[in-house]
């Protein structure tokens, strides 16, 4: 089959690799019909997530048709159409029973290494380094899906791929970002990053009752996409000293009730902070560049919530703990427990509350994945979201 493989830093290639087979009884093999490139794939592309190996099959947002099932899978049949959650979860452990499927205790074959790095291991994930288990990803013609009796969501109505594909990751992730804010009527929510997940967090914040949503980015076309869904925007390169003062002005000096970091470990800023973090990151003195997170903490109103869905891998520097403590902030974060959100979010799509496909700007064949990575990284041609058709 054809598969998009990580070959080296800033090098991906679509190459021929063997077709996957059933490895465990609860596996399924999916013939992929649509898959997407995620902003978090760019962290892999840029080499910021450790433990990538040459030849790793990338991709964790995918859907398709069941081709084969192991004998432990009774709920799916060949030909069923499914969306696959990017986090892998068993459904049996205590974490899964609580709905915290991204903390599955059984789905990460690299649990021991993850324990060394993070204290305790998190779940496995598709195509996302060897720290999350060494699972081949879904930017390919076929994928092997573990725990297929628990994870994949069967799509039975006549939705297009594009309407439901993002249930695999970015819609639940954006929605979780807003959900973690405990939004109440009248609240103002600020979102750092107008990428696909940021936009879906903004849309979700409105669905959850926010009165106003403010989006922060530096790319005018992305800010425009946010404005198109009713969001007020700040271009942080056009305001002095970052977005803090502007946010204060927009919120009567209070600051946003909750702040969502939809940027993660490769944040940018025009100021000295960026130079500091970029240098420390290059020297491997700091793994992640937390500029957006620091800004979100500074901006948030007293007693507010900072919700972090942007990806962080390890350690950060200059964390403003004094702000968190003295101003009574709550920080909430997770890799998304996708399984918990898929069904209710499918209902939102079915009821016409949202069509997540509004984030798509580029469609191309799987064979062009390398080009897709490049234009997405470089923000060429106003690229917001790339969908690959296998």
């Amino acid at each position, binding site marked *: 089959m054809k*598969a998009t*493989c990580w070959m080296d830093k800033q090098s991906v290639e679509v190459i021929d*690799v*063997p*077709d*996957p*087979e059933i*490895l*465990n*009884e*609860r596996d399924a093999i999916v013939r992929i019909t649509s898959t997407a490139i995620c902003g978090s794939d760019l962290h892999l592309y840029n080499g910021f997530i450790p*433990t990538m*190996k*040459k*030849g*790793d*099959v990338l991709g964790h947002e995918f859907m398709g048709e069941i081709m084969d099932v192991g004998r*432990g899978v009774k709920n799916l049949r060949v030909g069923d159409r499914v969306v696959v959650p990017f986090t892998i979860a*068993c459904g*049996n*452990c*205590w974490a899964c*029973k609580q709905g915290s499927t991204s903390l599955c*205790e*059984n*789905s990460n*074959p*690299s*649990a*021991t*290494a993850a*324990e060394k790095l993070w204290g305790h291991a998190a779940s*496995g994930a598709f*195509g996302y380094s*060897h*720290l999350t*288990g*060494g*699972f*081949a*990803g879904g930017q390919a013609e076929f994928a*092997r899906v*573990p*725990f297929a009796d628990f994870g994949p969501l069967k799509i039975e109505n006549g939705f297009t791929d594009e309407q439901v594909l993002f249930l695999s990751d970015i819609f639940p992730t954006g929605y979780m970002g807003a959900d973690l804010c405990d939004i109440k009527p009248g609240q103002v929510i600020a979102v750092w990053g107008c990428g696909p997940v940021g936009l879906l967090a903004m849309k979700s914040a409105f669905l959850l009752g926010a009165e106003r949503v403010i989006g922060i980015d530096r790319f005018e076309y992305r800010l425009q996409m946010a404005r198109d869904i009713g969001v007020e925007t700040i271009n942080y390169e056009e305001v002095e000293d970052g977005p803090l003062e502007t946010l204060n002005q927009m919120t009567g000096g209070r600051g946003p009730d909750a702040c969502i970091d939809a940027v993660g470990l490769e944040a940018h800023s025009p100021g000295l902070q960026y130079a500091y973090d970029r240098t420390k990151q290059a020297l491997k003195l700091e793994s992640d560049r937390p500029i957006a997170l620091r800004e979100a903490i500074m901006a948030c109103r007293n007693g507010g919530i900072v919700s972090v869905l942007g990806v962080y891998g390890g350690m950060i520097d200059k964390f403003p703990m004094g702000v968190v403590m003295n101003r009574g902030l709550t920080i909430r974060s997770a890799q998304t427990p996708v399984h918990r959100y898929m069904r209710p979010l499918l209902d939102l799509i079915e009821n016409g509350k949202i069509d997540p496909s509004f984030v798509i700007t580029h469609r191309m064949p799987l064979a062009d994945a390398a080009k897709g990575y490049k234009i997405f990284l470089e923000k060429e041609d106003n690229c917001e979201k790339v969908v690959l058709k296998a």
Partner: protein
Amino acid sequence: MHVTKTITINRPIDEVYTFWRDFENLPRFMYHLEIVETTGSNRSHWVAKAPAGKSVEWDAEVTEDRPGELIAWRSVGNDDDVRNSGSVRFMKAPGDRGTEVRVDLDYDPPGGKAGSIVAKLFGEEPTIQIGDDLHRLKQVMETGEVLRSHGAPEGIGRSVLRQHASQPSESEARPQL
């Protein structure tokens, strides 16, 4: 040398105890073991994978058996090279979270006049190996089997640095466990 490790398994105590008490199940999650045969109500014969493709064998006896609580065993005979003993305790986890399983193993340290073979079985980081064993036990008890990936075809136990690329392989090795 004393090694101890603990894990919580989301299954009732009796089920975890019963699984462990059948020593023939141990190789399903203890990868250094090839086979364990029950040879009597309290006796068993253990075959382990020794370095350089060899195997090493010993007989063991259960020294204490308190159903739902504790199993202790030790190697029998005069062979100092394979002297080892162990115990496993089962405790109800608080908050309806199943069973806490605590394993204690004792063997002679490497470099000493005896016990070097068993020390080699457990390697330079015995705590990690026992931890991997317990992760696999948890997978078997909670999900039915050890989960494999293309990077780690045998499942938990292969260090991240030694994993294959996350890519299907031609032979699609399906090691029988």
